[in-house]
């Protein structure tokens, strides 16, 4: 991801009022993670795996934070139990931002994630929007976070096509 697009992701999180993020770095989103770590307005906690990140975000929400998880498509699978529980049983809102590795157009063989990402979100009853144009990144992140907090639900934003590559 180009730095100017990564900045749009961070800008979107700020516009949304997100002040706490957690995750595990992903190659496609590495610029986003680095920007978050360096940003004084958003706390980034690097965790050992994505399930831990979901637990940390869950706890931070109870402390008054507006948390987001920044997860790879592989990491979404790691976080699945925790996210399903947080979303379905506890109904605690976490925004989940995902670079859509494995979607059509990905130049590497990662088709596994085409089979798991959207079906996985549906199985966990996590609504999502796919963002394909970089001009839509900021607005979509903001809208998804507003709905997550209003509905007390996890909501995901997944970036593909021109928004990601």
């Amino acid at each position: 991801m180009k730095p100017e697009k990564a900045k749009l992701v961070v800008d979107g999180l700020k516009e949304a009022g997100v002040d706490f993020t957690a995750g595990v770095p992903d190659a496609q989103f590495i610029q986003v993670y680095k920007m978050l770590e360096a940003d004084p307005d958003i706390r980034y906690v690097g965790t050992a795996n994505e399930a831990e990140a979901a637990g940390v975000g869950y706890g931070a929400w109870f402390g008054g934070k507006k948390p987001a998880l920044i997860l790879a498509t592989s990491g979404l699978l790691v976080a699945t139990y925790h996210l399903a529980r947080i979303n379905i049983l506890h109904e605690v809102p976490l925004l989940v931002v995902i670079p859509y590795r494995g979607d059509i157009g990905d130049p590497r063989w990662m088709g596994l994630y085409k089979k798991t990402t959207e079906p996985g979100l549906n199985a966990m009853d996590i609504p999502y929007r796919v963002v394909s144009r970089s001009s839509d990144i900021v607005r979509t992140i903001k809208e998804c976070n507003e709905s997550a907090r209003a509905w007390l639900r996890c909501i995901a934003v997944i970036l593909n096509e021109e928004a990601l590559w």
Partner: protein
Amino acid sequence: MVARLELIKALASIVPPEVLVVTSIGNNSYFWAELTDREATLYHSTLGMCTPAAFGLAMALPRRKVLALDSDGNLILNLGVLGTIANENPTNLTVLVMDNGNYLGSHKREAGMRTASGGKMKLEEVARGCGIASSHAVQDVAKFRERVQSALRTDGPHFIRAEVEALDLERPPKTKHVLDPRENKYQFAKYIERTEGVQILGGGLGNFG
């Protein structure tokens, strides 16, 4: 070796009511609910979520003491969190692990199956190796009280492993309705809002509010 119930009774008598307690699922939750009447409890953290949730809470509220009442099988599922805690260094966090060395020991009248800590793994040494300098193991009520009180009095992060019996043969009588996860969410969030002056709930009014 001591019964979980004895330690949770001791805990209930020494943890100040304003300390935020995050409990793992099973008898840590049920015994704590039976023996206390505190809004400052977040119950039912399963499969590795207890210590991460307590850690996230501690990061969000750095001036508030937070206690994770975790268990060995639960913590071992997300053991990497100990390294994360060491690096982030939340001075207000204490991780207390009831270690029965056993899966399902908290629920059944017969032994379950051994956890790694029921074998060679020493969780306090793992925590120390992860970088949590204040890491201890306790085997009796007196030492337990001393370590927990010290942890709540001083800057951490602290890690305490309490060796408990494999089975919870001593249990408190069931007299209470333990809050389900959603009831508990609202109660705990409202308590935090009231005592910390933060807004957690109350979205949904959009531009009309």
